[in-house]
């Protein structure tokens, strides 16, 4: 069964360093998402991506964050200069329909980011 894969499963980094989290969505999906979950808190929407551009982003997704789909298969989240409060589990998701309709999101297993 096709699934969303994420790498790395866990990354430890120093504050101020750049981090790239990678995701391979399900191959025929067109809509891609990043969510994050700070330990013990709710899952928060970061950004949605469609047709090679951001379709929506939350207030969390500031200038330190960027996304791209560099090669037609990977979907990456870059954090330019990490802060302690960026420590969280980051989930990638994909869908064949926009969530505002009926789209079920298919999630990866998450990438745990620890910023020291």
């Amino acid at each position: 069964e096709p699934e969303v894969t994420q790498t790395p499963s866990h990354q430890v980094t120093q504050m101020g360093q750049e981090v790239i989290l990678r995701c391979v969505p399900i191959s025929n999906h067109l809509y891609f998402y990043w969510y994050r979950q700070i330990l013990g808190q709710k899952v928060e929407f970061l950004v949605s991506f469609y047709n090679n551009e951001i379709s929506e982003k939350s207030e969390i997704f500031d200038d330190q964050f960027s996304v791209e789909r560099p090669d037609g298969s990977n979907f990456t989240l870059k954090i330019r200069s990490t802060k302690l409060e960026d420590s969280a589990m980051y989930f990638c998701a994909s869908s064949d329909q926009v969530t505002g309709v009926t789209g079920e999101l298919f999630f990866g297993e998450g990438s745990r980011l620890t910023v020291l």
Partner: protein
Amino acid sequence: AQTVTQSQPEMSVQEAETVTLSCTYDTSESDYYLFWYKQPPSRQMILVIRQEAYKQQNATENRFSVNFQKAAKSFSLKISDSQLGDAAMFFCAYSGDDMRFGAGTRLTVKP
């Protein structure tokens, strides 16, 4: 902005018994979708059940069913005949312009 509230951080149920997880949401929209996702330990979230707001009939999927009360903005999940494999974090989600999640309920199943 839409908010989703799960008031039960943890719930416990005896194997083979029934448990209900609660969820409320806030929205001004009339057309939307509601979901329950399950996240087993160290695994990805998977969809358990989905409800369209325009449908009055409550969705069911095998042992999982919902009690959708649109006027009260309530969307609870009932798990019947609980199994050990049901142990997981359960997230309620609202889908309008984007998908918003509740904080989750950790379900423990006792043998």
